[in-house]
């Protein structure tokens, strides 16, 4: 198309949005079907918080079973009915809880809740754009997520219960309804919900990429972008390229379930009905390949946004430039590439050819290189910094701590020889919860504490924030550290009751300890939710539009920016985002021109 037409298209969009906030907005167009990226980001965060509470509650319920396998809790029967008959969580329900806890936390909280919230909030604000490239598709992205949420929640209310084959939903268990209650209607809900979720993720990801590439303000070259934006960019690329493969896998699974195809099934005998199924020639391992081709990039989809936000928050609150900016970008890129090349390390025990396994071991261990670069850069950014321990900063440092602890056990698991012993034990549970689950959760908390003033023009309560941080930090280690020992001893994950085995009897007390801490940590998260909603309406009001003394563009907007973000012209950018403690000044915003005699960073 002609150059002129491109510019026309842009001018038209800019024009329209510039006048957007003059129009009267109804309740529905402002709060429900909003096309303002800031409101959509809040919608993602709200839904994410609801999901996080539900997902956390599920873990509390199954921890009750794991910690106290011989006790009964009559109140559970009152609340859950047949799923907790006699006050004891039933096996089918336990498996559904474990499955849904994984699905909900991985996809609905740490993908949609994290990327959806902060990519939406920060990409236009930190790139200097009035909104996303396509506000309409952005709105659709949220509503597809909402629809996915409704379908997923409704699966708890079907008679046979929610999906219970693990968050990975491996066939044949997930393909044949006769194999378990959760493989019946609940599994269909799971697949449909995931398909809707993938559409949501695609619409969001396309928008994030297009906005970052096309709509940066004048002067904001890619190498002047804050690391948050780089992280969101790579996250979106990972999502756009890996989720479609899960979609393919899910479609084939739906066909196997309902159309009699044999993509994943071969020579199946159902003992419950004493019948041999006619399916022939399929491969259950094929599903694992398709699943993990998404599944592995997915853990980086979860982790990268947390990395980006931690970089930004650590630099800002250390009052120091980020150490090794280009190395940080390069590491993100390297992780993004390697993420696509390591999926089979989840499949070492499937009968994978050991020589192929060796290649995947090598590629997996290579990820330690960019990860270590990032860790050292965070530490050297902190080194001799003038650190301000805000709650956001504490969570960002906590993120680094967890990423180191969990990352080191990843090196164990990445070795196929060790994986034969450790596969599907609590060691794996401990590893991925620390490095990906809790670490990313900490990144999310850091982001919420740091950008809450931008979202609502008020601060979160800091005292509650400190309590939240210390209980969660210590609690997370107390929950997951002991699981390493259980896993090394051979305790299998997902089992309903491991006390049936003599060699695991010694863990009774430890399991009670873990469950008790989990309950306390969960209660502390409720404290955070209270803090969030209380501060939204009653929190200390912001007086300074740039409360943390940050350089990035979002703090140049008014305290409560309208749709369009900047009332006048969009500011121009002249320098990178990390000029802290330079030339005797504490911070120099990106909008300030390079002074005479001052050298720019690049």
């Amino acid at each position, binding site marked *: *198309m*002609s*150059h002129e*037409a*491109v*510019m*026309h*298209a*842009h*001018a*038209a*969009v800019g024009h329209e949005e510039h006048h957007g906030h003059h129009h009267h907005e109804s309740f529905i167009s402002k709060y429900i079907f909003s096309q303002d990226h800031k409101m959509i980001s809040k919608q993602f965060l709200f839904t994410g918080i609801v999901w996080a509470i539900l997902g956390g509650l599920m873990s509390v319920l199954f921890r009750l079973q794991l910690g106290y396998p011989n006790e009964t809790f009559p109140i559970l029967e009152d609340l859950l009915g047949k799923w907790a008959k006699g006050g004891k969580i039933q096996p089918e329900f336990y498996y559904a809880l474990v499955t849904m806890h994984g699905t909900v936390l991985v996809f609905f909280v740490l993908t949609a809740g994290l990327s959806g919230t902060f990519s939406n909030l920060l990409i236009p604000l930190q790139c*200097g754009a009035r909104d996303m*490239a*396509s506000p309409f*598709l952005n709105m659709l992205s949220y509503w597809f997520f909402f629809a996915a949420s409704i379908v997923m929640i409704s699966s708890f209310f079907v008679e046979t219960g929610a999906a219970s084959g693990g968050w990975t939903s491996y066939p044949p268990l997930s393909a044949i309804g006769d194999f378990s209650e959760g493989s019946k209607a609940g599994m269909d809900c799971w697949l449909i919900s995931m398909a809707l979720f993938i559409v949501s993720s*695609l619409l969001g*990801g*396309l*928008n994030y*990429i*297009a*906005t970052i*590439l*096309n*709509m*940066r*303000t*004048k*002067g*904001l*070259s*890619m190498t*002047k972008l804050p690391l948050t934006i780089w992280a969101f960019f790579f996250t979106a690329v990972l999502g*756009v*390229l890996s*989720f*479609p*493969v899960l*979609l*393919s*896998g899910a*479609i*084939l699974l739906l*066909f196997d379930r309902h*159309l*009699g*195809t*044999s*993509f994943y099934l071969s020579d199946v005998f159902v003992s419950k009905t004493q019948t041999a199924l*006619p*399916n*022939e*020639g*399929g*491969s259950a391992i*094929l599903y694992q390949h398709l699943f993990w*081709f998404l599944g592995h990039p997915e853990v980086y989809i979860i982790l990268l946004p947390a990395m980006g936000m931690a970089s930004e928050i650590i630099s800002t609150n250390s009052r120091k430039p980020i150490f090794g900016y280009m190395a940080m970008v390069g590491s993100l890129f390297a992780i993004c590439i390697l993420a696509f090349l390591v999926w089979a390390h989840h499949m070492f025990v499937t009968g994978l050819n050991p020589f192929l396994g060796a290649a995947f071991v090598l590629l997996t261990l290579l990820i330690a290189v960019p990860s270590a670069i990032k860790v050292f850069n965070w530490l050297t950014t902190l080194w001799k910094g003038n650190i301000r321990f805000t709650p956001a900063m504490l969570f960002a440092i906590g993120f680094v701590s967890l990423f180191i602890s969990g990352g080191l056990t990843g090196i164990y698991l990445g070795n196929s020889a060790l994986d034969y012993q450790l596969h599907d034990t609590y060691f794996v549970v401990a590893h991925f919860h620390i490095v990906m689950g809790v670490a990313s959760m900490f990144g999310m908390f850091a982001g919420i504490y740091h950008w809450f003033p931008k979202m609502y023009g008020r601060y979160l309560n800091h005292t509650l924030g400190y309590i939240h941080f210390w209980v969660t930090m210590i609690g997370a280690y107390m929950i997951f550290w002991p699981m390493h020992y259980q896993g090394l001893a051979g305790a299998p994950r997902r089992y309903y009751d491991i006390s049936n085995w003599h060699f695991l009897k010694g863990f009774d007390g430890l399991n009670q300890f873990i469950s008790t801490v989990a309950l306390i940590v969960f209660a502390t998260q409720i404290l955070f939710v209270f803090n969030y909603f209380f501060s939204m309406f009653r929190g200390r009001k912001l007086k300074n539009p740039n409360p943390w003394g940050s350089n990035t563009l979002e703090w140049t907007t008014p305290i409560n920016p309208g749709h369009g973000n900047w009332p006048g012209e969009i500011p*121009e*950018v002249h320098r990178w985002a990390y000029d802290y403690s330079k030339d005797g000044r504490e911070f120099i915003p990106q909008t300030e021109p390079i002074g005479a005699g001052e050298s720019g960073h690049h």
Partner: protein
Amino acid sequence: MAQAAIPQEHKWWSGGKSPFNVSYGKLMMWYFLMSDTFTFGAFLISYGTIRFSQEYWPNPNHVFNSFPFAGHEANLPLAFVSLMTFILIISSVTMVLAVHAGHNMDKKGVQKYMLLTILGGLAFLGCQAWEWTHLLTGAHHVLIDGQIQELNTTVSHNPWGPQVMHNGELVGTPGPVAFGGYFFGITGFHGFHVFSGVVINIIMYIMTTRDVFHNRGHYEMIEKAGLYWHFVDLVWVFVFLCFYLI
């Protein structure tokens, strides 16, 4: 910015403009197509994995050898699918002409060529419907459990297995179960894309007729629809290669 002439030493990546000199919509379309490539890639790689793990795979020259109105005895291997492919490629050509007319702000030309593209898409879908019907309803004699039975081609069984001697004559056996699943699954998914493309093209045609693009001053939407249409065409080339030629 609207009328700024781009100077020679212009830095494309320094912000304030699109580094590729394309609108966000086109950029999003390109990334969507990359994403969709992975969807089809996953299907085709799965197909390849299963196909080459089987001892026997049907010969496409035997499966796809019929032609509408040519009678049951006609043996025209791949003739019909070649016609389908030809129709789809021609519809891509008319799409190119529609985009070209759009560049020249030639509303009549856009209308004419969009209409031809829509017809091409519908013709392709019609052909696919015929081929599916032919496979689903066309029963063949095969040997099952020592007896000759009639078998059609579905997602769960087909008559395209290796031939064996039975009572002194060659007779077919049931083919690999995976054949039907992948054939109907992947051509169906592609057909669904063609169908979406036709719907998009119809919407583009209506918008052109209502002067939406003319008033906007450019026909970029036609170009974006064209990107999608060419992609669907390109995917068919791979489907054609994987199911009919190899």
